[in-house]
Every structure is written in C-alpha cells, then in structure tokens.
C-alpha cells in the first residue's frame, strides 16, 4: 500500500499538503474526509458575529499581514528568498481562507498581491485553482444538517471568544 493522504480541501493545511504532493509528482491516494469547518459563522450559528469581534479579528489579520510583508517577505520574491519553498505554500493556503469569506486580503496590499501571483505561477495556475475550488465555493454550501450544527455549535462559539 502506497502513501495515503487524508484531506479535506476546505482546510488550509490540507491544501498546502495537496499542492506540494501534486506539484512534486508524489504518488498518493486521496482519502477525502469531510469536515464541516463552519467558517461561515453567521450561516452556522444563525446569528451575526458581534461587530466588535469581527473588527478585532480583522485588525489582528491586518497586523499579521503587515508582519508577513515586513518580516518574512521583505523585498524578496518569496518568503525564504529567490525561490518558492514550503513556507510560501503554507502562507498562501492560509491567506486564501479569508479570501473565500469575501475578505479582500490582497486588495490594499500590492506587495502581497504580487507575491501571490508569483506563487500561483510557480505552483501552476491549474493546480492552484483546483486546490482552492472547494473553499471558493463555500459560500454556496447548502445549510448544515441541524443535528451537526447543534454538535458543532459549542466549538464554533469557543472560536469566537
């Protein structure tokens, strides 16, 4: 039995692993696992996230993006220097997550936008789009099964705190 990868492409770390394996022609069997990540809190809880929580989360995201630009990327083409590395893969898959929620991470950040283009080009546009297809469609997900919703509610509420 060869390599098996248990993945749900809704998850950022799963996407990084998937892209890396495919890009490097590493043979594996995909074992899809369906997580109900519930990143869409309003959809999941049936109520809006309090504006203060949203504001402070976005502020935190902004701060992290600034650090990514200033400390890790700086004036380089990629995070670790002139060539793409696993660090770029991990970073990009994480950043695509808020993008899928409609958060324009790259809009006011030309340096990051340029870096994203470079990473996408290195990975290969097709593979990149393929890996992100699931998460870009998350807004169109059917409503979660009420039983599962109830089960996940406490952990979703925990994430909000």
């Amino acid at each position, binding site marked *: 039995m060869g390599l098996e990868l248990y993945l749900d492409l809704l998850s950022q770390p799963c996407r990084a692993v998937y892209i890396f394996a495919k890009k490097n022609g590493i043979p594996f069997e995909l074992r899809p696992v369906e997580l109900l990540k519930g990143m869409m809190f309003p959809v999941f809880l049936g109520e809006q996230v309090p504006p203060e929580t949203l504001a402070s989360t976005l502020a935190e995201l902004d701060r992290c993006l600034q*650090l990514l630009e*200033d*400390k890790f990327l700086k004036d380089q083409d990629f995070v670790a220097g002139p060539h793409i590395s696993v660090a770029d893969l991990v970073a990009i898959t994480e950043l695509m997550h808020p993008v899928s929620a409609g958060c324009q991470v790259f809009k006011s950040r030309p340096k990051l936008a340029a870096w994203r283009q470079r990473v996408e080009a290195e990975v290969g546009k097709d593979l990149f789009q393929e890996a992100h297809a699931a998460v870009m469609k998350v807004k169109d997900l059917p409503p979660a099964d009420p039983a599962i919703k109830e089960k996940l509610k406490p952990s979703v509420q925990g994430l909000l*705190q």
Partner: protein
Amino acid sequence: MGLELYLDLLSASCRAVYIFARKNSIPFDFQFVDLLKGHHHSKEYREINPLKKLPSLKDGKFILSESVAILFYMCRKYSTPSHWYPPDLHTRARVDEFMAWQHTAIQLPMSKILWIKMLIPMITGEEVPAEKTEQMLVEAKNNMQLFEEKFLQDKMFITGDHISLADLVALVEMMQPMGSKYNVFLNSSKIAEWRMRVELAIGSGLFWEAHDRLMKLAEWDCSTLDPMVKEKICELLQKFK
C-alpha cells in the same frame, strides 16, 4: 561576537532553548530581555525581533526567532547528539509532528493557566470568571490525555528510548502552570514518571536552575510593572470575560 540568545526564563520557549544550549555546552551570551518590565516591546529589542517575541537568536548578522526553528538550527550547526533530532525518517517526522501540534495544544493552554490563575488577578486585581477558568483547565487536561495517548504511549520518551527535542519542549511547557502552583502532572502516573525521566536526562541541577524564575513568580512585586504593559494586560482580561 559569538552566539547571542535573547531570553527571559519565565517563558517556556526560552527555557527549552536555554536548557538545550547549556546541556550541549554551546557557548552563548545570555541577553536578558525582561518580560515583566515589558522590555520585549522596547525599540532596541524590536530591532532584533520585530515580532516582539522571545526567544531570539543572533549569530553574527543572522537573526532567528521561533524557539522550534532555533532548536533545529542549534542541532544542525553544532552537530548535537543525534537522539535530540533523530535522522531516521519516521522518528524525525514524529518530532516534527509534535513540534507543530504543541503550539496550540500544549503551549497555549498551559500559558493561559498561568495567566488566568495568577498573572491576571495579580496585575488587575480581578479574578477571571470561574466558568472560563474551568473551561481552560478542562481543555488542558484533555490535551494532556491526547499527549499521553498519541505521543507518549508506553514508551520511555516520545521517540522511544532516548530524550529528544520533543520531550524537552513538552516538559518546559507543562511546567508553566507551576508558576501559579498548579501541577498538571498529578493526573497521570505515566506522565509523572515521564516528567522525572526527562528531568534526569537533562540533569536536575540545570532543569531547576532554568525554572527558578518561574517558581519565584508569586514573589514578584507587580507594582514595578510598566504601566503600558499593565494596560495591555487589562485589555487581555476583557477577552476572558
């Protein structure tokens, strides 16, 4: 100028780096950055590490942050005994796995216990609501169980018969609540025995020397706390309410 390590032994990540360097007789200059005085936010330190976090390593012009990265760097540069970061594919992967998992599963809950049980009440004069405290303690307990079942199992150490970076990091983090006299090792004899083994492998002298500042935290006169830092901590309290 040789290797410089920017540390405050109050931090678990700093203790891991300190113990590893000392145990392997890696020569370094101890640059004390006082967390209790908020020196990690100072202009001087921000030039070393804009992330304002400890530990940092400075090797000539090369600056490195993140304790896990620093530990790996020291292993490679100083060719430390291979049991610390075993070369075997699967054994090494096990260490990597633990190092990735521990940030949120062990380090964060253990650090929160210290904050909730001692630092926040000490600094703000207010207790964190009992419900939140209970939630935190349960989370920590569950993760200790996961640690035992998935990483330790019936072995002497995480990778088998010898101590590795994974045990060092795990233990210094689990020690963090001891600063508030909360002992997480009481729940499981297996973990208590592992704890003793790791301490002995490190050497009790070095181990307790590294933990001295943490163990004396209760004696700290927090009126000397930088007001800006105090304000940040009061904001932190709001998150727990």
